[in-house]
Protein backbone atom coordinates (compact mmCIF):
# COMPACT_ATOMS: atom_id res chain seq x y z
CA UNK A 1 0.00 0.00 0.00
CA UNK A 2 2.71 2.47 1.02
CA UNK A 3 4.43 1.66 -2.27
CA UNK A 4 1.49 2.98 -4.27
CA UNK A 5 1.28 6.12 -2.16
CA UNK A 6 4.98 6.60 -2.80
CA UNK A 7 4.50 6.14 -6.55
CA UNK A 8 1.86 8.88 -6.64
CA UNK A 9 3.98 11.12 -4.42
CA UNK A 10 6.99 10.61 -6.67
CA UNK A 11 5.02 11.47 -9.82
CA UNK A 12 3.51 14.54 -8.15
CA UNK A 13 6.94 15.68 -6.97
CA UNK A 14 8.36 15.29 -10.49
CA UNK A 15 5.51 17.32 -11.99
CA UNK A 16 5.88 20.04 -9.37
CA UNK A 17 9.67 20.31 -9.49
CA UNK A 18 10.04 20.24 -13.28
CA UNK A 19 9.22 23.92 -14.10
CA UNK A 20 11.44 24.98 -11.21
CA UNK A 21 14.33 22.98 -12.69
CA UNK A 22 13.95 24.80 -16.01
CA UNK A 23 13.78 28.10 -14.15
CA UNK A 24 16.91 27.21 -12.17
CA UNK A 25 18.91 26.47 -15.34
CA UNK A 26 17.75 29.75 -16.90
CA UNK A 27 18.62 31.69 -13.76
CA UNK A 28 22.09 30.11 -13.45
CA UNK A 29 22.77 30.81 -17.13
CA UNK A 30 21.70 34.42 -16.68
CA UNK A 31 23.99 34.86 -13.69
CA UNK A 32 26.91 33.30 -15.57
CA UNK A 33 26.33 35.73 -18.42
CA UNK A 34 26.25 38.74 -16.06
CA UNK A 35 22.53 39.22 -16.44
CA UNK A 36 20.19 39.48 -13.48
CA UNK A 37 17.87 36.81 -14.88
CA UNK A 38 14.21 36.00 -14.22
CA UNK A 39 13.45 34.46 -10.81
CA UNK A 40 13.64 30.68 -10.52
CA UNK A 41 9.85 30.50 -10.11
CA UNK A 42 9.19 32.32 -13.41
CA UNK A 43 8.23 29.14 -15.38
CA UNK A 44 5.41 28.49 -12.88
CA UNK A 45 3.92 31.95 -13.54
CA UNK A 46 4.32 31.40 -17.27
CA UNK A 47 2.50 28.07 -17.11
CA UNK A 48 -0.24 29.65 -14.99
CA UNK A 49 -0.62 32.46 -17.49
CA UNK A 50 -0.76 30.07 -20.44
CA UNK A 51 -3.41 27.94 -18.75
CA UNK A 52 -5.65 31.01 -18.45
CA UNK A 53 -5.14 32.15 -22.05
CA UNK A 54 -7.48 31.46 -24.93
CA UNK A 55 -6.59 28.65 -27.37
CA UNK A 56 -6.21 29.57 -31.02
CA UNK A 57 -6.19 26.66 -33.48
CA UNK A 58 -5.59 26.80 -37.21
CA UNK A 59 -8.55 26.01 -39.48
CA UNK A 60 -6.51 23.31 -41.18
CA UNK A 61 -5.73 21.44 -37.97
CA UNK A 62 -7.31 18.03 -37.39
CA UNK A 63 -8.16 16.17 -34.18
CA UNK A 64 -4.53 15.07 -34.03
CA UNK A 65 -3.44 18.61 -33.26
CA UNK A 66 -5.84 18.80 -30.30
CA UNK A 67 -5.04 15.31 -28.99
CA UNK A 68 -1.24 15.63 -29.12
CA UNK A 69 -0.69 17.83 -26.03
CA UNK A 70 -2.58 15.33 -23.92
CA UNK A 71 -0.71 12.34 -25.39
CA UNK A 72 2.65 14.06 -24.85
CA UNK A 73 1.78 15.01 -21.29
CA UNK A 74 0.30 11.60 -20.45
CA UNK A 75 3.36 9.77 -21.77
CA UNK A 76 5.77 11.74 -19.56
CA UNK A 77 3.47 11.34 -16.55
CA UNK A 78 3.42 7.58 -17.16
CA UNK A 79 7.23 7.60 -17.28
CA UNK A 80 7.46 9.37 -13.90
CA UNK A 81 5.75 6.33 -12.39
CA UNK A 82 8.28 3.93 -13.91
CA UNK A 83 11.58 5.73 -13.25
CA UNK A 84 13.25 5.39 -9.84
CA UNK A 85 13.19 9.02 -8.70
CA UNK A 86 12.93 8.61 -4.92
CA UNK A 87 12.84 4.97 -3.92
CA UNK A 88 13.41 1.39 -5.06
CA UNK A 89 11.83 -1.12 -5.42
CA UNK A 90 8.49 0.32 -6.48
CA UNK A 91 5.28 -1.63 -7.16
CA UNK A 92 5.18 -0.48 -10.81
CA UNK A 93 8.69 -1.81 -11.50
CA UNK A 94 7.04 -4.95 -12.83
CA UNK A 95 4.86 -2.95 -15.24
CA UNK A 96 7.60 -1.47 -17.35
CA UNK A 97 11.35 -1.68 -17.68
CA UNK A 98 13.81 0.55 -19.50
CA UNK A 99 12.45 -0.33 -22.93
CA UNK A 100 8.98 0.85 -21.94
CA UNK A 101 10.46 4.10 -20.63
CA UNK A 102 12.45 4.72 -23.80
CA UNK A 103 9.51 4.06 -26.09
CA UNK A 104 7.00 6.02 -24.01
CA UNK A 105 9.30 9.01 -24.40
CA UNK A 106 9.59 8.31 -28.12
CA UNK A 107 5.78 8.13 -28.38
CA UNK A 108 5.54 11.73 -27.17
CA UNK A 109 8.22 12.84 -29.63
CA UNK A 110 6.45 11.02 -32.47
CA UNK A 111 3.06 12.63 -31.82
CA UNK A 112 4.66 16.04 -31.36
CA UNK A 113 6.21 15.87 -34.81
CA UNK A 114 2.93 14.62 -36.31
CA UNK A 115 1.24 17.63 -34.74
CA UNK A 116 3.98 19.84 -36.16
CA UNK A 117 3.11 18.58 -39.63
CA UNK A 118 -0.65 18.70 -39.11
CA UNK A 119 -1.53 22.42 -39.55
CA UNK A 120 0.60 22.55 -42.69
CA UNK A 121 2.80 25.48 -41.64
CA UNK A 122 6.29 25.39 -43.15
CA UNK A 123 8.02 25.85 -39.80
CA UNK A 124 6.19 22.90 -38.25
CA UNK A 125 7.20 20.56 -41.04
CA UNK A 126 10.81 21.71 -40.85
CA UNK A 127 10.90 21.23 -37.09
CA UNK A 128 9.28 17.80 -37.38
CA UNK A 129 11.79 16.62 -39.95
CA UNK A 130 14.71 17.80 -37.80
CA UNK A 131 13.24 16.32 -34.64
CA UNK A 132 12.93 12.96 -36.35
CA UNK A 133 16.54 13.12 -37.53
CA UNK A 134 17.67 13.72 -33.96
CA UNK A 135 15.27 11.21 -32.40
CA UNK A 136 16.21 8.42 -34.80
CA UNK A 137 19.82 8.70 -33.63
CA UNK A 138 19.19 9.53 -29.99
CA UNK A 139 16.64 6.88 -29.08
CA UNK A 140 18.80 3.79 -29.76
CA UNK A 141 21.64 5.47 -27.85
CA UNK A 142 19.48 5.88 -24.74
CA UNK A 143 18.50 2.23 -24.89
CA UNK A 144 22.08 1.11 -25.54
CA UNK A 145 23.53 3.27 -22.75
CA UNK A 146 21.07 1.91 -20.19
CA UNK A 147 21.66 -1.59 -21.57
CA UNK A 148 25.31 -1.23 -20.56
CA UNK A 149 24.09 -0.84 -16.97
CA UNK A 150 21.49 -3.56 -17.39
CA UNK A 151 24.19 -6.01 -18.45
CA UNK A 152 26.18 -5.55 -15.26
CA UNK A 153 23.00 -5.64 -13.15
CA UNK A 154 21.60 -8.65 -14.99
CA UNK A 155 18.17 -7.07 -15.43
CA UNK A 156 16.55 -4.43 -17.65
CA UNK A 157 14.48 -3.32 -14.69
CA UNK A 158 15.48 0.25 -13.72
CA UNK A 159 14.80 -0.33 -10.03
CA UNK A 160 17.02 -3.39 -9.95
CA UNK A 161 19.82 -1.57 -11.79
CA UNK A 162 19.79 1.11 -9.10
CA UNK A 163 19.69 -1.46 -6.27
CA UNK A 164 22.53 -3.41 -7.86
CA UNK A 165 24.83 -0.39 -8.22
CA UNK A 166 24.18 0.47 -4.56
CA UNK A 167 25.28 -2.96 -3.36
CA UNK A 168 28.39 -2.86 -5.55
CA UNK A 169 29.79 0.71 -5.31
CA UNK A 170 32.93 -0.13 -7.32
CA UNK A 171 30.78 -0.71 -10.39
CA UNK A 172 29.91 2.99 -10.50
CA UNK A 173 33.50 3.74 -11.54
CA UNK A 174 33.81 0.95 -14.10
CA UNK A 175 34.49 2.10 -17.67
CA UNK A 176 31.13 0.74 -18.81
CA UNK A 177 29.33 3.06 -16.43
CA UNK A 178 31.48 6.08 -17.22
CA UNK A 179 31.14 5.67 -20.98
CA UNK A 180 27.40 5.09 -20.64
CA UNK A 181 27.15 8.24 -18.53
CA UNK A 182 28.88 10.24 -21.27
CA UNK A 183 26.58 8.79 -23.92
CA UNK A 184 23.42 9.40 -21.90
CA UNK A 185 24.51 12.96 -21.07
CA UNK A 186 24.91 13.89 -24.74
CA UNK A 187 21.57 12.26 -25.54
CA UNK A 188 19.93 14.15 -22.67
CA UNK A 189 21.04 17.40 -24.27
CA UNK A 190 19.66 16.24 -27.64
CA UNK A 191 16.35 14.87 -26.37
CA UNK A 192 15.51 17.84 -24.20
CA UNK A 193 16.54 20.40 -26.80
CA UNK A 194 19.48 21.93 -24.93
CA UNK A 195 22.26 23.96 -26.43
CA UNK A 196 24.70 22.26 -28.73
CA UNK A 197 21.75 20.68 -30.54
CA UNK A 198 18.87 23.09 -30.13
CA UNK A 199 18.67 26.51 -28.52
CA UNK A 200 15.94 26.63 -25.87
CA UNK A 201 16.26 30.38 -25.33
CA UNK A 202 15.22 31.67 -28.74
CA UNK A 203 12.14 31.65 -30.86
CA UNK A 204 12.16 32.17 -34.60
CA UNK A 205 15.68 31.18 -35.26
CA UNK A 206 16.15 29.35 -38.52
CA UNK A 207 17.82 26.39 -36.85
CA UNK A 208 15.22 25.78 -34.14
CA UNK A 209 13.91 22.25 -33.70
CA UNK A 210 11.56 21.93 -30.73
CA UNK A 211 10.30 25.49 -30.91
CA UNK A 212 9.49 25.09 -34.59
CA UNK A 213 7.22 22.13 -33.94
CA UNK A 214 5.22 23.83 -31.20
CA UNK A 215 5.00 27.18 -32.96
CA UNK A 216 1.29 26.70 -33.78
CA UNK A 217 0.29 25.91 -30.20
CA UNK A 218 -1.16 28.42 -27.79
CA UNK A 219 -2.97 28.66 -24.49
CA UNK A 220 -3.38 25.55 -22.36
CA UNK A 221 -2.11 23.28 -25.14
CA UNK A 222 1.18 25.12 -25.19
CA UNK A 223 1.26 25.02 -21.38
CA UNK A 224 0.85 21.24 -21.40
CA UNK A 225 3.62 20.80 -23.98
CA UNK A 226 6.00 23.14 -22.17
CA UNK A 227 5.29 21.40 -18.88
CA UNK A 228 5.82 17.98 -20.48
CA UNK A 229 9.16 19.18 -21.91
CA UNK A 230 10.21 20.31 -18.42
CA UNK A 231 9.18 16.96 -16.90
CA UNK A 232 11.15 15.17 -19.62
CA UNK A 233 14.24 17.17 -18.64
CA UNK A 234 13.68 16.19 -15.01
CA UNK A 235 13.25 12.52 -15.98
CA UNK A 236 16.53 12.49 -17.88
CA UNK A 237 18.33 14.30 -15.05
CA UNK A 238 17.03 11.85 -12.46
CA UNK A 239 18.00 8.93 -14.71
CA UNK A 240 21.52 10.38 -14.94
CA UNK A 241 21.61 11.04 -11.22
CA UNK A 242 20.03 7.86 -9.90
CA UNK A 243 21.28 5.22 -12.33
CA UNK A 244 24.92 6.26 -12.18
CA UNK A 245 25.18 7.75 -8.67
CA UNK A 246 22.40 5.89 -6.85
CA UNK A 247 23.35 6.92 -3.29
CA UNK A 248 20.55 8.66 -1.48
CA UNK A 249 17.76 6.71 -3.18
CA UNK A 250 15.63 5.19 -0.46
CA UNK A 251 15.55 1.38 -0.21
CA UNK A 252 13.55 1.18 2.99
CA UNK A 253 10.30 3.07 3.15
CA UNK A 254 10.93 4.96 6.38
CA UNK A 255 10.31 8.73 6.64
CA UNK A 256 13.96 9.51 7.41
CA UNK A 257 15.38 7.70 4.35
CA UNK A 258 12.68 9.30 2.19
CA UNK A 259 13.69 12.73 3.48
CA UNK A 260 17.29 11.90 2.55
CA UNK A 261 16.08 10.71 -0.87
CA UNK A 262 14.30 14.02 -1.55
CA UNK A 263 17.31 16.01 -0.38
CA UNK A 264 19.75 13.99 -2.48
CA UNK A 265 17.46 14.25 -5.52
CA UNK A 266 17.42 18.03 -5.13
CA UNK A 267 21.20 18.10 -4.75
CA UNK A 268 21.72 15.97 -7.88
CA UNK A 269 19.31 18.13 -9.89
CA UNK A 270 21.07 21.32 -8.79
CA UNK A 271 24.49 19.87 -9.70
CA UNK A 272 23.31 18.70 -13.13
CA UNK A 273 21.53 22.02 -13.73
CA UNK A 274 24.79 23.78 -12.90
CA UNK A 275 26.72 21.58 -15.34
CA UNK A 276 24.20 22.26 -18.12
CA UNK A 277 24.19 25.99 -17.38
CA UNK A 278 28.00 26.20 -17.53
CA UNK A 279 28.05 24.10 -20.69
CA UNK A 280 25.42 26.26 -22.37
CA UNK A 281 27.35 29.39 -21.48
CA UNK A 282 30.62 28.06 -22.81
CA UNK A 283 29.65 26.46 -26.10
CA UNK A 284 27.86 27.66 -29.20
CA UNK A 285 25.13 25.84 -31.04
CA UNK A 286 26.35 23.23 -33.51
CA UNK A 287 25.59 23.53 -37.19
CA UNK A 288 22.63 21.30 -37.96
CA UNK A 289 24.72 19.03 -40.16
CA UNK A 290 27.16 18.45 -37.31
CA UNK A 291 24.39 17.22 -35.02
CA UNK A 292 24.27 13.66 -36.43
CA UNK A 293 28.05 13.52 -35.92
CA UNK A 294 27.73 14.49 -32.25
CA UNK A 295 25.03 11.88 -31.83
CA UNK A 296 27.19 9.25 -33.48
CA UNK A 297 29.89 10.15 -30.93
CA UNK A 298 27.41 9.35 -28.19
CA UNK A 299 26.32 6.19 -30.01
CA UNK A 300 29.94 5.01 -30.20
CA UNK A 301 30.38 5.78 -26.49
CA UNK A 302 27.28 3.72 -25.71
CA UNK A 303 28.49 0.90 -27.94
CA UNK A 304 31.86 0.87 -26.16
CA UNK A 305 30.07 0.93 -22.83
CA UNK A 306 28.03 -2.15 -23.76
CA UNK A 307 31.14 -3.89 -25.09
CA UNK A 308 33.19 -3.25 -22.00
CA UNK A 309 30.45 -4.22 -19.57
CA UNK A 310 29.73 -7.33 -21.63
CA UNK A 311 33.34 -8.44 -21.83
CA UNK A 312 34.41 -7.43 -18.35
CA UNK A 313 31.55 -9.12 -16.56
Amino acid at each position, binding site marked *: MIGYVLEVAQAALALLLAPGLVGLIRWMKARLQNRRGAPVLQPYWELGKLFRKEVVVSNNASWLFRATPFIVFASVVAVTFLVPILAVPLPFDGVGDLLVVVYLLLLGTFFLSLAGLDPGSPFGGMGASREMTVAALAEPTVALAIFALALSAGSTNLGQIVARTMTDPGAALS*PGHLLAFGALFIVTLAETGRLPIDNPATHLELTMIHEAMVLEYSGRYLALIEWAAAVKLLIFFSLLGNLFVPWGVSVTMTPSTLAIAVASLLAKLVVLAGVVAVLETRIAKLRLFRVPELLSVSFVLALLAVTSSFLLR
Partner: protein
Amino acid sequence: MDSVFSQLSVMGSSLALIFGLILLWRRGVTAYISAFTWQSRVITAVTVVVAYFGHDHELYWVAGALFILKGLVIPRLLRRMERRFAAERELEPYVNTATSLVISGLLVLFGYAITRPLVALSQLPTRAGMPLAMGLVLVSLFVIVSRKKALTQVIGFLMLENGLALLAVLGTYGIPLIVELGVFLDVLMGFLVMQIFVYQIHETFESIDVEQLNRLRH
Protein backbone atom coordinates in the same frame (compact mmCIF):
# COMPACT_ATOMS: atom_id res chain seq x y z
CA MET B 1 43.39 -3.21 -3.30
CA ASP B 2 43.71 -5.09 -6.54
CA SER B 3 40.22 -4.10 -7.58
CA VAL B 4 41.03 -0.40 -7.06
CA PHE B 5 44.18 -0.89 -9.10
CA SER B 6 42.37 -2.55 -11.99
CA GLN B 7 39.54 0.02 -11.89
CA LEU B 8 42.04 2.88 -12.07
CA SER B 9 44.01 1.34 -14.91
CA VAL B 10 40.87 0.56 -16.92
CA MET B 11 39.55 4.04 -16.33
CA GLY B 12 42.83 5.55 -17.47
CA SER B 13 42.85 3.48 -20.63
CA SER B 14 39.21 4.38 -21.41
CA LEU B 15 40.09 8.05 -21.05
CA ALA B 16 43.10 7.61 -23.34
CA LEU B 17 40.85 5.95 -25.92
CA ILE B 18 38.29 8.76 -25.71
CA PHE B 19 41.02 11.35 -26.31
CA GLY B 20 41.95 9.28 -29.36
CA LEU B 21 38.36 9.44 -30.63
CA ILE B 22 38.45 13.26 -30.42
CA LEU B 23 40.77 13.14 -33.45
CA LEU B 24 37.92 11.75 -35.50
CA TRP B 25 35.25 14.13 -34.26
CA ARG B 26 36.96 17.54 -34.13
CA ARG B 27 38.41 19.35 -37.12
CA GLY B 28 40.76 22.00 -35.76
CA VAL B 29 44.45 21.36 -35.12
CA THR B 30 44.19 23.11 -31.72
CA ALA B 31 41.73 20.51 -30.48
CA TYR B 32 43.97 17.70 -31.76
CA ILE B 33 46.97 19.07 -29.90
CA SER B 34 45.14 19.44 -26.61
CA ALA B 35 43.64 15.96 -27.02
CA PHE B 36 47.14 14.55 -27.52
CA THR B 37 48.52 16.49 -24.54
CA TRP B 38 45.79 15.28 -22.22
CA GLN B 39 46.08 11.74 -23.50
CA SER B 40 49.80 11.75 -22.73
CA ARG B 41 49.12 13.06 -19.24
CA VAL B 42 46.52 10.35 -18.64
CA ILE B 43 49.01 7.71 -19.77
CA THR B 44 51.60 9.22 -17.43
CA ALA B 45 49.06 8.90 -14.61
CA VAL B 46 48.39 5.25 -15.55
CA THR B 47 52.14 4.58 -15.48
CA VAL B 48 52.42 6.16 -12.03
CA VAL B 49 49.49 4.04 -10.82
CA VAL B 50 51.13 0.88 -12.16
CA ALA B 51 54.45 1.88 -10.56
CA TYR B 52 52.77 2.47 -7.20
CA PHE B 53 50.65 -0.68 -7.07
CA GLY B 54 53.21 -2.87 -8.86
CA HIS B 55 56.08 -1.66 -6.61
CA ASP B 56 58.28 -0.93 -9.61
CA HIS B 57 60.50 2.11 -8.98
CA GLU B 58 61.91 2.21 -12.49
CA LEU B 59 58.45 3.02 -13.80
CA TYR B 60 58.49 6.36 -11.96
CA TRP B 61 61.42 7.39 -14.14
CA VAL B 62 59.58 6.20 -17.24
CA ALA B 63 56.54 8.22 -16.16
CA GLY B 64 58.70 11.27 -15.63
CA ALA B 65 60.35 10.96 -19.03
CA LEU B 66 56.95 10.34 -20.64
CA PHE B 67 55.51 13.45 -19.04
CA ILE B 68 58.42 15.68 -20.06
CA LEU B 69 58.59 14.38 -23.61
CA LYS B 70 54.96 13.85 -24.57
CA GLY B 71 53.22 16.03 -22.03
CA LEU B 72 55.42 19.10 -22.46
CA VAL B 73 58.04 19.06 -25.24
CA ILE B 74 56.13 17.57 -28.16
CA PRO B 75 52.93 19.56 -27.47
CA ARG B 76 55.09 22.67 -27.43
CA LEU B 77 56.67 21.81 -30.78
CA LEU B 78 53.19 21.00 -32.13
CA ARG B 79 51.86 24.39 -30.97
CA ARG B 80 54.72 26.07 -32.82
CA MET B 81 53.72 24.22 -36.01
CA GLU B 82 50.07 25.04 -35.39
CA ARG B 83 50.80 28.75 -35.46
CA ARG B 84 51.77 28.34 -39.07
CA PHE B 85 49.12 25.88 -40.17
CA ALA B 86 46.15 26.93 -38.03
CA ALA B 87 44.09 27.61 -41.15
CA GLU B 88 44.59 24.04 -42.37
CA ARG B 89 41.48 22.35 -41.02
CA GLU B 90 40.54 18.76 -41.66
CA LEU B 91 37.51 19.60 -43.79
CA GLU B 92 37.25 16.72 -46.23
CA PRO B 93 38.74 13.54 -44.85
CA TYR B 94 38.62 10.40 -47.00
CA VAL B 95 35.96 8.97 -44.67
CA ASN B 96 33.32 11.32 -43.27
CA THR B 97 33.04 11.97 -39.54
CA ALA B 98 29.94 9.91 -38.71
CA THR B 99 31.16 6.87 -40.65
CA SER B 100 34.64 7.06 -39.17
CA LEU B 101 33.19 7.17 -35.65
CA VAL B 102 31.16 4.04 -36.30
CA ILE B 103 34.21 2.38 -37.89
CA SER B 104 36.30 3.29 -34.85
CA GLY B 105 33.67 1.69 -32.62
CA LEU B 106 33.97 -1.49 -34.67
CA LEU B 107 37.78 -1.26 -34.52
CA VAL B 108 37.62 -1.18 -30.73
CA LEU B 109 35.38 -4.27 -30.85
CA PHE B 110 38.00 -5.86 -33.08
CA GLY B 111 40.64 -4.87 -30.52
CA TYR B 112 38.64 -6.75 -27.90
CA ALA B 113 38.46 -9.77 -30.16
CA ILE B 114 42.18 -9.96 -30.93
CA THR B 115 43.39 -9.32 -27.37
CA ARG B 116 41.12 -12.02 -25.99
CA PRO B 117 43.81 -14.74 -25.80
CA LEU B 118 46.25 -12.20 -24.36
CA VAL B 119 43.81 -11.19 -21.63
CA ALA B 120 42.98 -14.81 -20.88
CA LEU B 121 46.69 -15.62 -20.52
CA SER B 122 47.53 -12.70 -18.27
CA GLN B 123 47.20 -12.75 -14.49
CA LEU B 124 47.90 -9.05 -13.96
CA PRO B 125 45.18 -6.84 -12.46
CA THR B 126 45.74 -4.42 -15.35
CA ARG B 127 44.71 -6.91 -18.04
CA ALA B 128 41.22 -5.45 -18.51
CA GLY B 129 42.74 -2.28 -19.98
CA MET B 130 44.71 -4.05 -22.71
CA PRO B 131 41.82 -4.30 -25.23
CA LEU B 132 41.27 -0.55 -24.87
CA ALA B 133 44.96 0.17 -25.52
CA MET B 134 44.81 -2.10 -28.57
CA GLY B 135 41.66 -0.23 -29.63
CA LEU B 136 43.60 3.04 -29.34
CA VAL B 137 46.37 1.63 -31.55
CA LEU B 138 43.83 0.58 -34.21
CA VAL B 139 41.92 3.87 -34.05
CA SER B 140 45.16 5.86 -34.47
CA LEU B 141 46.10 3.74 -37.47
CA PHE B 142 42.68 4.49 -38.91
CA VAL B 143 43.27 8.23 -38.33
CA ILE B 144 46.55 8.01 -40.24
CA VAL B 145 44.98 6.35 -43.28
CA SER B 146 41.71 8.29 -43.38
CA ARG B 147 42.88 11.89 -42.86
CA LYS B 148 44.43 14.12 -45.50
CA LYS B 149 46.38 16.78 -43.63
CA ALA B 150 49.98 15.93 -42.82
CA LEU B 151 49.71 17.44 -39.33
CA THR B 152 46.71 15.23 -38.44
CA GLN B 153 48.65 12.20 -39.60
CA VAL B 154 51.61 13.19 -37.44
CA ILE B 155 49.36 13.47 -34.39
CA GLY B 156 47.78 10.15 -35.33
CA PHE B 157 51.26 8.61 -35.34
CA LEU B 158 52.05 10.09 -31.93
CA MET B 159 48.81 8.68 -30.55
CA LEU B 160 49.68 5.30 -32.04
CA GLU B 161 52.92 5.44 -30.09
CA ASN B 162 50.98 6.43 -26.96
CA GLY B 163 48.76 3.38 -27.47
CA LEU B 164 51.78 1.10 -27.74
CA ALA B 165 53.32 2.59 -24.61
CA LEU B 166 50.05 2.06 -22.76
CA LEU B 167 49.84 -1.52 -24.00
CA ALA B 168 53.39 -2.19 -22.79
CA VAL B 169 52.70 -0.74 -19.35
CA LEU B 170 49.42 -2.61 -18.91
CA GLY B 171 50.57 -5.91 -20.39
CA THR B 172 53.98 -6.30 -18.79
CA TYR B 173 54.33 -3.50 -16.20
CA GLY B 174 56.65 -1.75 -18.62
CA ILE B 175 59.74 -2.73 -20.55
CA PRO B 176 63.28 -2.13 -19.14
CA LEU B 177 64.19 1.50 -18.66
CA ILE B 178 67.00 1.44 -21.21
CA VAL B 179 64.66 0.14 -23.94
CA GLU B 180 62.05 2.70 -22.94
CA LEU B 181 64.61 5.51 -23.26
CA GLY B 182 65.56 4.24 -26.71
CA VAL B 183 61.90 4.30 -27.74
CA PHE B 184 61.50 7.85 -26.44
CA LEU B 185 64.52 9.00 -28.42
CA ASP B 186 63.13 7.29 -31.51
CA VAL B 187 59.80 9.05 -31.07
CA LEU B 188 61.50 12.41 -30.70
CA MET B 189 63.71 11.80 -33.75
CA GLY B 190 60.74 10.52 -35.78
CA PHE B 191 58.74 13.55 -34.80
CA LEU B 192 61.52 15.97 -35.74
CA VAL B 193 61.97 14.28 -39.12
CA MET B 194 58.22 14.41 -39.76
CA GLN B 195 58.19 18.05 -38.76
CA ILE B 196 60.80 18.78 -41.44
CA PHE B 197 58.71 16.84 -43.94
CA VAL B 198 55.59 18.82 -43.07
CA TYR B 199 57.44 22.09 -43.57
CA GLN B 200 58.85 20.83 -46.87
CA ILE B 201 55.41 19.74 -48.10
CA HIS B 202 54.07 23.14 -47.17
CA GLU B 203 56.98 24.86 -48.94
CA THR B 204 56.40 22.94 -52.16
CA PHE B 205 52.60 22.90 -52.37
CA GLU B 206 51.54 25.83 -50.14
CA SER B 207 49.32 23.34 -48.28
CA ILE B 208 49.81 20.35 -46.00
CA ASP B 209 47.23 18.27 -47.81
CA VAL B 210 49.02 15.01 -48.62
CA GLU B 211 46.76 14.50 -51.61
CA GLN B 212 48.88 17.12 -53.34
CA LEU B 213 51.77 14.65 -53.31
CA ASN B 214 50.05 12.84 -56.20
CA ARG B 215 51.18 15.71 -58.40
CA LEU B 216 54.76 14.54 -57.98
CA ARG B 217 54.13 11.62 -60.33
CA HIS B 218 54.31 13.77 -63.43
